[in-house]
């Protein structure tokens, strides 16, 4: 009986989330806020990706920024070539402006050889290539990293430390490869995403819908994925890898698969983020950013996909509304630190866990009083 109410409550939250996200442009007519919210929805996707690997697979990936950053850079390369700044460099073919600044004197103004490694950019002249690579590259990297780590049965904290070291490594490389990546400054002045002749200005309702629909689709697909047989086996490997192994399951395969899916979502999120924010910089590879994602997921609820996504969206929305002045922004970071410590200490299941507890309490109460108003009680718990 109470179990059915939980399932209903869960579905209600998902439905409410999707309806609100899709209906938001009707309520908010300020495109700047819409653009901001689109960014936070992307962060919500990152929170979801963390919950998928951490909450469901028990893999704490402190280097999720690696996949986000890779996805971001891939699409940014294509959009950079579409930018007006790339078409004004005295060549009939687009050349990123920073390459001219980095070129050796006398180098031909062509993507093939203007700077060492600039040929890597050639296929990115096609936008679909950048879009595809934004998911393919993170997935391939995750496959290589994941299969190395999990076949060797590295687990727990060591996964966290390896992924942390990897994202730092990527950050150093992207800064060092100045002629290809524009180093510290990253890729800025990007062009707009163009699909079927329509240019998607980041401050446009249509662009918001690209993000909103993507987030909803990813959310539903992930939810479906964890309810499959593979998802259930994965959760058993999280709870006791040895027992699952003795039962005959190839633990590493399940871990690699979900690690890769999580990375693919992060890469996709990176692509969407570039579309709305119009830049890609090495800050995506900062440790602080990767750990922030974990903070969002932890506050929202590490073992709830929608909880983690809502955690990310809530924290960022509140942050944006309080950060009117520099001082309040600093104070907000202090509050986040305190909230995070409190959540880890006293509420390890996050807001989602809290919501479930409240729902359980309400159900117990209504059963005790013998009332049949369970319908109203679970809507109250949302």
């Amino acid at each position, binding site marked *: 009986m109470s179990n059915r109410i939980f399932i209903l409550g869960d579905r209600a939250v998902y439905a409410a989330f999707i309806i609100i996200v899709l209906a938001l442009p009707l309520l908010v007519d300020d495109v700047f806020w819409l653009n901001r919210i689109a960014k936070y929805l992307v962060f919500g996707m990152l929170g979801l990706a963390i919950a998928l690997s951490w909450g469901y697979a028990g893999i*704490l990936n402190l280097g999720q920024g690696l996949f986000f950053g890779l996805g971001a850079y891939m699409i940014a390369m294509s959009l950079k070539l579409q930018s007006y700044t790339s078409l004004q460099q005295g060549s009939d073919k687009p050349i990123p402006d920073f390459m001219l600044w980095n070129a050796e004197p006398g180098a031909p103004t062509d993507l093939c050889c203007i700077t060492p490694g600039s040929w890597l950019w050639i296929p990115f002249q096609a936008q679909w290539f950048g879009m595809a690579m934004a998911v393919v590259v993170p997935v391939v990297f995750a496959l290589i990293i994941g299969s*190395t*780590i999990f076949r*060797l049965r*590295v687990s*727990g*904290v*060591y996964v*966290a*430390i*390896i992924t*942390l*070291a*990897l994202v*730092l*490594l990527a950050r*150093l*490389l992207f*800064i*060092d490869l100045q002629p290809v990546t524009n180093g510290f400054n990253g890729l800025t002045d990007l062009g707009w995403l163009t699909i079927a002749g329509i240019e998607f200005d980041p401050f446009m309702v249509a662009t918001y819908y690209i993000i909103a629909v993507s987030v909803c689709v990813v959310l539903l697909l992930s939810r479906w994925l964890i309810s499959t047989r593979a998802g259930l086996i994965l959760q058993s490997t999280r709870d006791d890898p040895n027992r699952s192994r003795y039962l005959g399951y190839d633990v590493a395969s399940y871990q690699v698969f979900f690690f890769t899916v999580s990375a693919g979502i992060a890469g996709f999120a990176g692509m969407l983020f570039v579309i709305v924010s119009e830049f890609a910089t090495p800050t995506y590879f900062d*440790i*602080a950013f990767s*750990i922030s994602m*974990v*903070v969002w997921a*932890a506050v929202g609820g590490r073992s709830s996909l929608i909880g983690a996504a809502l955690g990310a969206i809530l924290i960022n929305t509140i942050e944006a509304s309080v950060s009117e002045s520099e*001082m309040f922004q*600093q*104070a907000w*970071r*202090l509050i*986040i*630190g*305190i*909230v*995070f*410590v409190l959540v*880890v*200490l006293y509420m*390890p299941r996050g807001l989602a866990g809290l919501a479930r507890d409240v729902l359980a309490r309400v159900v117990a109460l209504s059963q005790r009083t013998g009332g049949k108003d369970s319908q109203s009680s679970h809507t109250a718990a949302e």
Partner: protein
Amino acid sequence: MFEVLFIGLSLTSVLLLIALGLSITYGAMGVINMAHGELVMIGAYTAVLAGIHLGFNIFLSLPLAFVVAALVGLLIERVVIRRLYGRIIDTLLATWGVAIILQQLIRLEFGLTFFGISIEGLGPGLQNMRVPTFMMEPFDLMGLSIQPYRTFILCVTILLTALTWYLVYRTAIGVQVRAIMRNPQMAAACGIDVRRVSALTFAYGSGLAGVAGVLLAGFRTVMPDMGATVVVDGFLVVVVGGVGSLLGTILSSALLGQINGIVSVFSNDIIARAVVFGVVIAIILWRPRGLFSFKSR
């Protein structure tokens, strides 16, 4: 060649200083303390503040920073870490929160900023610690140019390492620490006050971080987020060396410091750090328990 080795040696000593405290807290207590870098930062700020307001020089600042950082460490242990023993990933996350809190307290000058009060040496800006001039001028010794400050760091590191070794392997409390390291339940059953010893161990490790902070302040800019980069380096050293092994920590900081020094001579700093990360990842994959380790909890 000697100069290359010396660069590596001074990198080693800084790494070792940072990793020493971490090795104790991680090894003995199974706590991943992400706020370790912030304890280093607090040590550095103690030196800056004591220099401005009390006129302390670096020699007086060292013991003061030890005490201040140890007290902050004790507070962190009492308030946060005590509740998380045995939940290693949670200690990582909670201490990350603690790290943010400590950084923001320095940025906001403990909240005084809101009342319009400003203390010289705090706040979001960059700070510097003055080092006596005689320590900054290189002198010649048998045809080699010796930098006094680097040599000073090296000496302090050696002293602290020796002290730590003595405490862990030659004193009564060291025996208790090692017992807890192997098996906390059994240690408790033998009458060791695990809580008290753990708290003291954590305070000592934090104090070492404070000393490292003072020494770092001599050649790096002091700022609220200086700890963030430091803590990762420290962790890599500890993990490579093997959890709970003092010798492993010393050797792995030597290994990583020398790799960093040698590669940076032949290419650049960024590539050197990249190579170090690569080596660390390879070692963790090859020997997840580190180069020197025994079976522990």
